[in-house]
């Protein structure tokens, strides 16, 4: 469901030609830049907490006293209790212990897939925007065609063709988001290309590659950063959906999406905890990335902030 972030991106394409220094400020001045940026701070905190939790729980699976796959002597299908905070599943496992490391695949696929699409999409976008002519036209047409197709279905079909596992999911997610970065970067390049300073650099005699790398690329970063956060939020949902459809990691590896699919069978008998908790985890993580995106958007586009609306 990349399109959601894609649409934001479309809106952002117009809005976020904001100053680059604001984004660099986040990177270099860290906390100082975060002052007053509540949304961004909360988002970063959520994501960092999830990454730490998943890393710890993957390294030490029995961190809460129960192993997510090997411990199988809990009471069967029991609701949350003092000893099993999030209840137990049909294989007598502790749900909480599975929750802790169940986001591993989502995080790995989201980050790696995003890196792939970011690199391919931006490079193609820079080339297309700068080269113009027939190359630009063909690339744009192909990208638009892919962009218009439902990304969720594309991802499902790709994973089905590649076979299941981590790397097929990474490539599928990576492929699906390429047009988003292509569009953002290309639009940005087209705009920056016409500015006076680029003309000045060209007049000085700088080569094309130098212009792109030194003068055009840095100006596209702020737009790309906001878009990436929204895409990460979206990728988390895509991975969860793939797992839910049984195209993710094979059992018994703990995974939120898969665990929800598994819990579906026991809904009729009232075992609500099997799907509720993994779902809440997916929402929180996805929300975290979404908030980061919102925060960055506010940073690079402060126009709306502090503006009082009559009415």
């Amino acid at each position, binding site marked *: 469901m990349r*399109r*959601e972030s894609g*649409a934001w991106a479309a809106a952002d394409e117009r809005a976020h030609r904001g100053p680059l220094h604001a984004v660099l400020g986040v990177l270099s001045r860290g906390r100082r830049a975060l002052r007053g940026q509540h949304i961004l701070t909360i988002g970063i905190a959520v994501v960092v907490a999830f990454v730490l939790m998943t890393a710890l729980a993957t390294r030490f699976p029995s961190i809460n006293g129960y192993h997510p796959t090997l411990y199988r002597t809990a009471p069967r299908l029991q609701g949350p209790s003092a000893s099993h905070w999030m209840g137990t599943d049909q294989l007598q496992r502790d749900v909480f212990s599975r929750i802790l490391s169940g986001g591993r695949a989502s995080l790995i696929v989201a980050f790696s897939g995003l890196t792939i699409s970011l690199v391919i999409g931006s490079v193609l976008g820079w080339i297309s925007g700068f080269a113009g002519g027939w190359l630009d036209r063909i690339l744009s047409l192909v990208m638009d*065609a892919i962009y218009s197709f*439902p990304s*969720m279905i594309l991802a*499902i079909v790709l994973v089905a*063709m590649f076979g299941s596992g981590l790397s097929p999911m990474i490539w599928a997610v990576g492929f699906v988001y390429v047009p988003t970065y292509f569009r953002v970067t290309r639009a940005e390049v087209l705009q920056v290309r016409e500015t006076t300073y680029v003309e000045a650099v060209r007049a000085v005699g700088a080569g094309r590659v130098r212009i792109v790398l030194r003068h055009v690329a840095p100006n596209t970063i702020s737009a790309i950063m906001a878009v990436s956060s929204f895409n990460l939020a979206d990728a988390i949902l895509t991975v969860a959906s793939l797992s839910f*459809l049984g195209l993710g990691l094979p059992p018994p590896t703990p995974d939120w999406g898969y665990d929800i699919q598994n819990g579906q069978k026991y809904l009729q008998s009232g075992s609500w905890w099997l799907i509720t908790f993994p779902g809440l985890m997916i929402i929180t993580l*996805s929300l975290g990335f979404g908030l980061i995106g919102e925060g960055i958007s506010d940073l690079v586009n402060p126009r709306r902030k502090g503006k009082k609306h009559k009415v």
Partner: protein
Amino acid sequence: MSGLPRYALQRLLLTIPMLFILVTVVFLLLRVMPGDPVSAMLGGKNVSDEVLATYRVKFGFDRPLLQQYGEYISGIVRGDFGRSIRTNQLVLQELARKFPATLELAIFGILVSLGLGFTTGLIAAVRADRPVDHAIRVFHIASFAMPLFWLGLMLQVFFAVKLGWLPVASRLGGRLAFTFKPITGLYALDAVLRWDGKALVDVLQHLVLPAFTLGIALTGLQGRITRASMLEVLDQDYITTARSKGLHERVVQLRHGLRNALIPIITVFGLQFAVLMGGAVLTETVFSWPGIASYLVLAIGARDYPSIQGSVVFIALFISVINLIVDLLYSVVDPRVRY
């Protein structure tokens, strides 16, 4: 020919190269990407090379790529999508039979998302930076972050299993599933056409949960764009002019504001449709809805290669048609768009 009909024709002709590219991309993805379709079809089963070879010949994978491409394109043009391995039926026929279910779900999903997204977005814009606005924005962001299948399951648990108000899944319940004779395949419409009140109630009851699942998932996008677009318009000078004329605030907001804010909202509508189709895959799976999206999932499960390819091409066609319609609608709403 001039004006709108001329533009419509131009736009229609532009759809063809776009569609051609999309269909080619599908072909490239399915044939040229790593992974042998035949072994994928056999699900990694341990089969001899001879069996693989027979399959390859049977589905034409042994021929040169260019020839395969030619046959593929001519097949699509002639409406020949091949025969399903799983059911041995013609893929296009099966898709045509399943399509109304998806269309009906999509229409009702859109109605829900328009109703919810549009009103919440409008309220948020008119009450910008007040508590209501903040609450609505949180709701919009949450609807983005929510896995659609999870929302569907939660609604199912609460309203169908726990309260028992609505049916859990499928399109028709009880005996109706066997006795109801569809005409168009859009059951709600069929029930009206057959003047069958009982069936209509049953059909609508079955539609509520899937439509809300799909609709709520789209509400965030719709609502955000409505809010942003409305706020931008309300900042314009002509709004100030309208206010200074002494017009009532509601008139300013709705007549001067809303009308102009509609343009980006409609643009997003086209994008939304792609999300909608993606969401349909999950909604149809959760609610056992017999549409083309769940057909695709079944085909993938069975590694039914012709069906997978056919569904993808079919969905691509559908999306192109929708985008065409949205573009035409766009030029009707915005008189500044010249054709």
